[in-house]
């Protein structure tokens, strides 16, 4: 099992959700976050002075899938989240040790469906 963690543009969330759904990935957790990349946010030129906006609002999507589904998830996210401009975000893939469904106590692959 792997957790795919994607940091994306907030305005792309609906498109990414749709794209994941089309590929069969329904379950996910979404968090509003703030962050920055190597460019340290955006600096605006304002009548000669510079104004730094050093963290920008982003959305984090977390989705746990079987190992063989990771590439499909990554493809679904990147295809919908990419604008080609700086600030499109990043995806991290993290190993998951156990998954438990709280309602039934079940454990393992059946908990994460796919």
């Amino acid at each position, binding site marked *: 099992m792997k957790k795919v963690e994607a940091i994306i543009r907030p*305005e792309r969330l609906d*498109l990414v959700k749709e794209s994941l759904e089309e590929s069969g990935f329904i379950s996910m957790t979404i968090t509003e976050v703030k962050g920055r990349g190597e460019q340290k946010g*955006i600096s*605006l030129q304002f009548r000669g002075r510079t104004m730094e*906006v050093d963290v*920008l609002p982003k959305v984090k999507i977390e989705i746990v899938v079987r190992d063989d589904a990771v590439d499909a998830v990554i493809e679904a996210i990147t295809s919908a989240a990419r604008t080609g401009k700086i600030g499109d975000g990043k995806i991290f893939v993290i190993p998951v040790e156990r998954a438990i469904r709280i309602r039934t106590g079940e454990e393992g692959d059946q908990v994460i469906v796919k």
Partner: protein
Amino acid sequence: MNLDSGDTAWILVATALVMLMTPGVGLFYGGMVRRKNAVSMISLSFIAFALVSIQWVLFGYTLSFGSDIAGFIGSMEYFGLEGVGMEANGTIPHLVFMIFQLTFAAVTLAILTSAIAERVRLSSFIIFGLLWTTMVYDPLAHWVWGGGWAASIGALDFAGGTVVHISSGFSALALALVIGKRAGFGEYSMEPHNIPMTLLGAALLWFGWFGFNGGSALAADGIAANALVVTNTAAAAGALSWLLAEWLRGKPSSLGMVSGAVAGLVAITPAAGFVDPLSSIVIGAVAGVICYKAMLFRVRKGLDESLDSWAVHGVGGVWGALATGIFASEAIGGYSGLIYGDVQQFIAQAIGAGAAVVYAFAVTFILAKVIDTTIGLRVTEEEEYIGLDVSQHGEKAYA
């Protein structure tokens, strides 16, 4: 005429009521934008109020209410409020009449910020706003109320259906066409960030409208009482009719319900001193439905007149002007409409409304084009992405 202390007291209070409508517009619009533009949206209304307050005292009042020049504009006789003092104008001090009218001019500019929401450059708005209120509002106010041509053909506008609502609504349409869509409009959803804020704004509008229409009798009398009653009745009918119209297609939203209330308020504005309470139910209910349809039409056309001042104020204002010509009752304000067999009044209403539509749209379109090609109406792409709160004000609505 002599000063009447009752009339004076009421118009002083009504002035304060109408003043509250401008921040009310700000909150109404502020809740509908995304969180990154909330400060900007509310501020635009305050800035509109401050800007027009100064312009009006210096030369706006005299352009609107100075002695008539060719039916089109007022003379400079009251420049800098020269000769506008404590003496009676009707039964209230001239100064009270002047400041009461000021609050109308200010709220009109605030209404049209709908068209430039989330993308206007603050400095350009200030320049545009000053020119717009001078070149569009002041002439229209003169035509209808200051002894201009619309008054002389007998077009009725009790409290500003034409001057305030048609002018701001159709100007917003022109302005939206010039400034263009918000980045991402139509690609992803731009949901209102705070609906309770919008509901609070609507509450202030409904409340302030008692001064707007009730005060327009310029007296504490029976006409003021009639205006107050029909205003509330039309607002209620508009709220319910929009609610029901939306319910037929899906869930009845609170946003739709208050938009319907505003539509009802807009439509009754020109008619408030001329129609009876039962007519105001029809006027308000029809306004709720046609403004809702106008909003759907606007969305279908992919037009980003962002917060629907065209659909609600423009379309509602035209309906209100025509409705005045349909439902005016001689027993209320001394004029008869279509239902009492007077076609002439209806024709005068249609001419007055039509001229205001054309003038507001055309002059605003040209003015906006000139500003857009010289200094630019819009912020840069990056500033728009970050949001106007940070890029224009260096502030955030929510930490």
